[in-house]
Every structure is written in structure tokens, then in C-alpha cells.
């Protein structure tokens, strides 16, 4: 089955120029997302997953700067487009994003309906009346009761779950090809989480969109995603189908993450020793090496090459050199 490539990120490097020094947030990230799939990007806080998402939309916040790399979307390099082109053609139309704290992500002085309608009017050239009608339909699609009433209300009157639905309605209203969901359920109650996630899955298949889901929660990934990418400290360390990652993790970090999930098989909480590195002075070579139980000298000196474990499953680690079919270096597929 040949899948269409929707988004390819090649060797993306992003730095943040702060008072304390240069934070090397993304260290050459590679990523491929295919049309129609639900791709999960996992990693601890600070590993660079949200920065990657910002990079795609060219909305990296000050004082960040995209140093090098390519972001190829529908065969065009987004990083070579002018800001005006990205704003006009990509943002809101082709690629949209929902965020972690939905109530804060909504403009407090505009009512909910108007905010959704705004995107429709700007991106789909709808008239105000058409847009308002469509807003009510959209709100119904995301299972919001009494959509007319909610449309007239303001964001601060919404619960977290409702607000996130409004965001979803807003961001799917223009039928984008790619929806980025940056920790969409992290700030919600567990019961609401499940609702929102299943809603998301339904809508995605209905609208035939592709999703890049960013989260630190492996269980969310396990439930919803087709393929998973694991990030650590600005590097993509392992990518594969969700079953492969959960049942056959290769990278020591991924193994650590999976082991850290509390289960009834083990009595104690297992943790990965050490702590997240300071990205102003990141560890040399493989950034995970200070915390790795299998570290060798090679790991401290060179950045690991990418190797293929099995079909659709790759890992960036020296442990497997020579153990698998040689992979292409420098790219994670």
C-alpha cells in the first residue's frame, strides 16, 4: 500500500537565543507524515515537540529562530515561502492547530460564534450570514448542546472540555489537510479527555484530515494513533507503528518510557535515572547518553545514525549497529 506523503520535515534545527545562552531546542529533527494518518509525537516536557509544531506553521516564538532544515508540505518547502504566503495560503486553510489550554486560546472579548466565523470568512470567503449558519452546524458536529446559546456566549463561560470542542470546531471548519493537536487533552479531566479524543477521531475520519498529535501521555497515543514518533531533547529517537513502539521498543529511552507506565505486573514505580538535560549545553554525541544504561564511548562522541528495525520502524541508536539492515543515515522515516 503506497501512502501519500503529506508532510516531511528534514533536518530541522531551531535555536532560542535567551539571556542564559543559546538553547539548541531542535537538533536536526526528521519526520514524515502520510495522508490520512493519526501521527503521535511523544516525549517529555521540553523535548521539542511543541517547537516542532510551531516550526511547521512558522510561528516559532521569540527569541527562537529556525536555523536550517526543510519542511515540505504538499511538495512545497514551507520554509522557503514568504511570511505573507504562509499566512495567506497555509495557516488556517491547509494547516491548523489546537492547543493545550483552550479557554486561554480563545479571545476573551469576542463571543464564541464570531471567533469561529472569523476563520470561515477569512479563509473560505464566506459571507457573514453563511458563516454564522455554518458555525451552528459545526458546533452541533462537535456535540455541543444548544449551539445557538453557546455561540452567543463568551469563552470564560465555557468549561475546558466545551472550550476544546469550540477550538476543534474552529480549526476543522476550514477543512484543513493537516491538523496539529498540541497536548489537546493534557489540561482536561480524564473523563473529558476520552470524550474529546474520540470526538477528534470521528471528525478526522469524516473530514479526511491528517493529524499530528503531540502529547507526553503514552496511553493517549496507544488509543488513538497509527504511527508514533518519540522525541528526546530535540532529537527524534524512534519512529514506528503504534504496536511496534509499544510492544517492541528499541531505543533505551522508549523502553524507559514504556516501563515507567505503572502496571499491575510490577510493584514499584520504575523511572529513568537522571534528568532532562540543559539544552544550552547539551550532552555531546547522543543526547540521551548520560541517562542510558547501555552507554558506550561511541555514544558520547557521535550522533547516532538512523537504522531500520523492521518495516516502518526506525531507531537512532548505536546499540543496533550491524544488527539490522543498514538504514539511510540522517533521516528517520
Amino acid at each position, binding site marked *: 500500500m503506497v501512502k501519500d506523503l503529506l508532510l516531511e520535515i528534514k533536518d530541522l534545527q531551531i535555536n532560542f537565543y*535567551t*539571556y542564559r545562552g543559546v538553547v539548541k531546542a531542535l537538533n536536526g529533527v526528521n519526520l514524515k507524515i502520510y495522508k490520512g494518518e493519526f501521527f503521535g509525537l511523544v516525549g517529555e516536557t521540553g523535548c521539542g515537540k511543541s517547537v516542532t509544531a510551531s516550526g511547521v506553521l512558522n510561528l516559532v516564538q*521569540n527569541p527562537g529562530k529556525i536555523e536550517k532544515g526543510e519542511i515540505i508540505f504538499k511538495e512545497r518547502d514551507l520554509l522557503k515561502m514568504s511570511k505573507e504566503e504562509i499566512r495567506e495560503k497555509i495557516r488556517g486553510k491547509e494547516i491548523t492547530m489546537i492547543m493545550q489550554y483552550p479557554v486561554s486560546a480563545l479571545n476573551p472579548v469576542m463571543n464564541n460564534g464570531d471567533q469561529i466565523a472569523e476563520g470561515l470568512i477569512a479563509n473560505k470567503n464566506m459571507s457573514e450570514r453563511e458563516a454564522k449558519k455554518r458555525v451552528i452546524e459545526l458546533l452541533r458536529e462537535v456535540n455541543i448542546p444548544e449551539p445557538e446559546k453557546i455561540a452567543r456566549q463568551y469563552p470564560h463561560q465555557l468549561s475546558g472540555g466545551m472550550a476544546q470542542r469550540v477550538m476543534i470546531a474552529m480549526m476543522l471548519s476550514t477543512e484543513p489537510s493537516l491538523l496539529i493537536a498540541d497536548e489537546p487533552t493534557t489540561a482536561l479531566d480524564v473523563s473529558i479527555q476520552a470524550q474529546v479524543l474520540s470526538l477528534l477521531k470521528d471528525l478526522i475520519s469524516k473530514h479526511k484530515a491528517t493529524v499530528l498529535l503531540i502529547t507526553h501521555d503514552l496511553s493517549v497515543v496507544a488509543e488513538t494513533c497509527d504511527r508514533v514518533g518519540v522525541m528526546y531533547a530535540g532529537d527524534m529517537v524512534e519512529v514506528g507503528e503504534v504496536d511496534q513502539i509499544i510492544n517492541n521498543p528499541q531505543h533505551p529511552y522508549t523502553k524507559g518510557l514504556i516501563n515507567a507506565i505503572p502496571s499491575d505486573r510490577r510493584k514499584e514505580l520504575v523511572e529513568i535515572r537522571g534528568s532532562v538535560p540543559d539544552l544550552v549545553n547539551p550532552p555531546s554525541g547522543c543526547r540521551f547518553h548520560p541517562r542510558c544504561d547501555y552507554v558506550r564511548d561511541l555514544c558520547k562522541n557521535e550522533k547516532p545514525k538512523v537504522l531500520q528495525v523492521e518495516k516502518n520502524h526506525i531507531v537512532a541508536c548505536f546499540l543496533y549497529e550491524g544488527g539490522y539492515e543498514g538504514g539511510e543515515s540522517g533521516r528517520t522515516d
Partner: protein
Amino acid sequence: MVRENLQNWITSWNKRHSSEISDFKEAVYLIRKSPLIIVGLSIILMLIIVAIFAPCIAPYDPITMHLDNRLAPPSKAHLLGTDELGRDILSRIIYGAGIALNIMIIVLAIDLPLGILLGLIAGYFGGWIDEIIMRLSDIFMAFPRLILAMAIGTALGPNLRNTMIAIALTMWPVYARLARGETLSIKERTFIEAEKALGTSNLKILVFNILPLCLSTLIVRATLDMGNIIRIAAGMSFLGLGAQPPTPDWGLMISTGRKFLISQWWVPTFPGFAILLAVFGFNLLGDGIRDISDPHLRRGRQ
């Protein structure tokens, strides 16, 4: 025994407030990196040194009249010229620094404790005490500051001391409200409940737990007001309600020099620059401190 108790208390205080202490260390780091604060502090330091060492720095005595040398333009002998009574303007400005700083310190010395006291009581005990203090502050705040200060100053009699009292009376409501606001939010925090459960008296809670946490906001506000106090005091002296001749107060110098504005412009102009410089320095400091202590703006730096 007492010494041991004190040491134990200090250690446990350090532990309990370790996050505030690291905030403080970060603040010092940021201060060193902030040009606003550094320039502001330099100006203020210079002001303080000038004020303290005025007798050594000033080339002439500020009060003695030299009627043979009135209204002389700036020259080598008198860098900023002389005024209508032949006094060296530079020396008077130098001595004026001390007066301005003195006014500011005394006003804050009255207002901060008064405001904190009333604010803590109003916020902590609530009820009718709170209502009374708040209505009182509303009434004081209902007048534009200068007008109220003028009224009080006139009522008490035109001299420097009464000006300081008048200005203090116009500014206490701000501090009381701030202290009250902080108290209201702090008293709901669980560690206060814990202290109460331990049986700590209200007084001790107020002084040892709530007060230290309020202080930072109030001090930030005070630094923002420092410049204003000097400016309002100058205004009062300009109107004749503050310092009286022959005090070398900057506002008074402008007032008496006003008639010579056209022909001997240096007489009222230079004291004004002094006021500008002083207020500017304090405002720089206040801005810098506010930039540092505001978590919102700090986020932007990361």
C-alpha cells in the same frame, strides 16, 4: 540559648521561604543585566552622594547673599550662574538634593507603615473595619492628589514639614489597598490555615507570615512612587505651600526665579533640570524593578 533559637528560626525561615530566596537570587541576576536599573541606580547613587556630601562638594554656601553679584550668567566662577540674591545656583541645587531626598524618605516612612497597617487589618479582619477603612480610602482617593495636598498644606500652614504630611496623607490609600489585596489572597492559602490550626495568634500570623509576602509588592509600588513624590513636593513648593525662603528647595527656586525667565533664563531653568534628572532616575529604577518582578513580562525573556 536565645542565640540558638534565633539561628534555628533563621534556618527554618530559610527553608520555608526557599522559593522566595531563589526568586531573590534570580532577581539580583536580572538586575545586573538590566540597563534601566543600572542607569537608574547610578543616578540615584549620585544623588545620594551629592546630598550627603553637599558641604564638601558645593563650591559656595547656599544661603549667603551676595547682592553685588545678582543674576550673573553661567561662568567659570559660577557654573550655573547666580540667582536674584547673588547665591550660586549650582551650590543651591546641590543642597537641594538633600532636601528632595529627605522629603521622599519621610513621606514613604509615613505612608508605608501606615498603609501596610491599615491594609493588613482591613484585609485580615474584614467586616466593618474593612468597610470603614475602604470608604476612608475612597474619600481620600476621590481628590486629585495635588489638590488634596494643597488643601491639607494650606490648612496646616505652608512649610516643608506640613507639605510632607500632606503628600503622605494623599498617598496612603494606594498602599493600604495594595496591602489589603495581598492580605486577602494570602490569608486564603493553606499555610495560614495550618498556622491557625497550630494555634498561632493572629498578631503573629500577620507579622511573620502575611507581612513578609506583602512587602515585595509594596516596595515595588513605593519605588514607582518615589519620583512622583519629589515632583509633587516641587509643585507644592512652587506654589508657595512648601519650602519657604531661603531654603534651597528646587521647586521654590523655580518659583522665585520665574520672573527672571526671559532675561535671566538660567535662574528657573537649572533647578528644573535637577528635578527632571532626579525623578527620571527614580522612574528608571521603578520601571526596571517592575519589569523584573512582573512574572508576565519575565516570561517574554525565555
